[in-house]
């Protein structure tokens, strides 16, 4: 079970969190024209990386904040966690 550092609450066990997918995907702006391909990339296409990956988790049974977590998908090592409003550097 992973140990995730919520930037608001501190280190908590994985079972307090729910997974939310790739954190680098940006939702296209509302009302903007967008090609089928770009929309498909936003909705469906993911890289499914092996290695370092920025992903979203929600601290569901805690502060309910969505957070950004940099995790190695192969080793599960967690390098960094950010608040929702902090930019991935």
């Amino acid at each position, binding site marked *: *079970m*992973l*140990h995730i550092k919520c930037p608001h609450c501190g280190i908590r*066990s994985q079972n307090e969190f*729910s997974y*939310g997918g790739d954190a680098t995907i940006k*939702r*296209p702006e*509302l*009302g903007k024209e*967008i090609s*089928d391909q770009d*929309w498909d990339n*936003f*909705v*469906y296409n993911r890289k499914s990386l092996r290695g370092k990956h920025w992903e*979203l988790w*929600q601290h*569901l049974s805690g502060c*309910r*904040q*969505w957070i950004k977590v940099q995790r190695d998908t192969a*080793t*599960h090592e*967690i390098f960094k966690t950010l608040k*929702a*409003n902090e930019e991935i550097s």
Partner: protein
Amino acid sequence: MTQSFRLESGGLINRDKKISFKFNGKNYFGYEGDTLASALIANGVHLIGRSFKYHRPRGFFGAGVDEPYAIVQLYRNGETEPNIKATEQELFEGLEAKSVNCWPSVNFDIGAINNFLKIFLPAGFYYKTFMWPKSFWYKIYEPFIRRAAGLGTASIKHDKERYEHKYEYCDVLITGSGPSGLASAYSAAKNGAKVILAEDKSRFGGTLLTSEVNIGNQSGKEWADSIISELKEMPNVTVKNRSQVFGYYDHNMLVMSERISDHLPKTKKFHPKQRLWYIRAKEVLISSGSIERPIVFGNNDTPGVMLSSAAKEYMKVYGVLVGKKPLVFTNNDSGYETAIEFKKNGIDPIILDTRKEPQSEIIEEAKNMNINIKNSYVVVAAQGYKKVKSADIAKISDNKEELGSIENIECDCICVSGFWTPTIHLASQSGNKTKFNEDIDAFVPGISKQNEKTLGAANGIYTLEETLKDSFEKGNQLSKKITNNENKVSFPNVVEKKSTVHDKFWCVPLPKGKNYKRFLDFQNDVAVSDIEIALKEGYRSIEHVKRYTTLGMATDQGKTSNLNGLQLVSKIENKVVPAVGHTTFRPPYSPVSIGAIVGREVGKHSKPTRKSPMHSWHEKNNAVFVDAGVWLRPRYYKRGEENLFEASKREAKNVRTNVGVCDVTTLGKIDIKGPDAAELLNRVYTNAWLKLPVGKARYGVMLREDGIVMDDGTTTRISENHYHMTTTTAQAANVLSHLEYYLQLVWPELNVNVVSTTEQWAGAAIAGPKSRELLKKLFPKSDVTNEGLPFMGYMEGDLFGVKAKIFRISFSGELAYEVNVESDNGYFMWEKIIEAGEEFGIQPYGTEALSTLRIEMGHVAGSELDGRTIPYDNSLEGLLSKKKDFIGKRSLSRRAFAAEDRQKIVGVVPLDKKTSIPEGSHLVKDANAPLPNPKLGYISASCWSVEHDNPFSLAILKDGKNMIGEKLFVMSPLKNKVIPVEIVSSHYVDPKGERVRS
């Protein structure tokens, strides 16, 4: 029965306390401190079961967790448990155990016929033979295999015992209390670290209990005892026996099972039977020791053939002889220690050493004791069926390939030592890249992935002095890092006998003309010949060989067999062992009871039960409840002898003719506040929200980004910046997360707060033509006329002194209202509604009537919004705003979603107006078309229409738009039904929606 194999004295058992127990129906005695195995051996019982595949007789092979044979069915305090190792089960008064794997009895076992047919049972036999003919599998093969195989019977009764879970954090977790565990725990504890020391067995000390060593002028056992008692006194140390750390998971989380009551006749009051510990450790020191490996020879599975270390442990710990004419067969010095122990107890052993001229202190001692030692000798085969009677032995050539002439010598046990295999399971589970150590022919931990270090024998260090030095040091270093404290422990003086190198020999060649079975895996009956066949048939990867032959796949996970299996593959394949690699170690290290894993989450505790504030009223009024997610909801209110069908029909009909009331507390409710609340709603719902006036409700549908309908419900504008959203019961939590996602990550600029208020409000839906009359009585001060409170209107009211929210919304298609009050007033509200409604013929209605009402109205719910449908499919396309963008809108223009013949919701009526249509059935054009019959759609929900008094269903049908009036067939292969039906509009009642506005 006398304990004819019990020594006069010695051992760590309590001879003052006799314990009686039963094995296979016979009464025996043992002593306090015995295991079931040691007590049985003391009583001369050596036959304990039958093997899994060939049903060959099985005795004892080890003395602990590595035991592959002695698995019994245990009976304790009216309960029974399978898969118990007799070598681990401590004896208690009244213990009962039975053999497994034998039918009808252990002495006469019909399955043993497999042994004589063994030519037909090579590797992969099950795969090859029982696959054909296919029809034989269920009727003939499977019942036969099930009858003959298995490791006992699981109880089908409810387990009355309590199991607990515990979460713990520590600085250093140490797994095993042998020399390395004790030394490292001691130095870590002295530095002030929070230490947990876990010992699998009941006694602390590991090999110190059985080895002839001296530490600081104390015997090994005395030293262990003194360290343990000192550790127990320290407040920063937790010492646990009967506690096995069986799994190493991510981020240094380990799981340990503590067997609190298994050694007692009965679990004490307020005690659990077992406790599962989830431990987060900053550092883990693996001190799990090593397990002796067998040497492979003919009939090496005969009862009486066992590990030499086990024979020694039975003598030194339990005061029990495993035999009176022992043969010790060894390739290293460990066998000598066992022989010396026999000799000390007045028994004359014979040592067969595969080495030519080994020399060491230990060997010298054996020679001085006049023990008969035969060098360059091997056991070719054990003889005897249910117990070893003699051994065929022979000289072996220096290249270990030629056998000399066979001699037969009498013996009643063969104690085997093929050197030691480090127990690397936990290290391997942690992700450690293990490496092969040529010196000990075994894998040892390599590069750590997590914060773990392996000590002593588990790391391939086999001398006590080196082990202690390393362990004191590691315990000190790691704890110092955490506590910034250092209290160096002075290193004790260590005396141990020096040993010499072992012989890499591990498998005795077959003598000419003999075809003895030489077993590698003793629990799954995998012999050398099976591996040979697998390789001949082209299996190469060790993972494939393992699965094909089942080597190492039994409940002992190959603790005694893996390495010899690898040696064999590497020999045949002419590869070095590290190139073959070992199979993956997975938790648990040893079987764990399901009860311990489940813990307290059993039955009603397996999930929370949510009840509405009106629950007790429902109970008093004969409600029959149904699980709705975690909620308990009344399904119907039973009157007299009514069944579900009759009751729900009555309740639904009463809504259509009079008035009904339904508990809708379970609906998800989300409070939305802030200046941008309307903007948020406008983005998450498909329809327009910016112009909704205060005091009005609106129905809305929300989509996922992929265009699929996520949820629907009404949201009401309570005041300028305050909205009350309702969701379906099932999606309440998901919708909240969904809103939080967009507010926190996508549109943080929106100034809105959302919070769940599901529990804060109790809700009652009042529906039916007489509902307004009822409402007038409930809220005499409010104007609830059609003008004062029109359809989709909202107002606050005073319900006999209680503040209430009144929404004019309808799920049933009738004139209807929903009244919400604060939860604490829910019961009061409900009673008032029932009381006031009496004159209008009010009846409460449950979820079944609720379904009926919504189905015949064509109002979609969970069975249509099933994660596969878009708004069009549910005839909700009228709610899609063309003027604004919203979540998921772009997806709706994808080709499949915009297809002309896209599926759409329709109504379905059986032509005979009688036959009920099973939910989930398929719609087809031609009932007699050849299979696979093209499916046009499926039945999503069925009811008995109370309006039309005939069955009615909703279906999602291909090109549904153009199918109204068509005649199709409903097919349910499950229920074996074919029903001719007509497709009608999904709005079967009041298609113009006049009633809700009346």
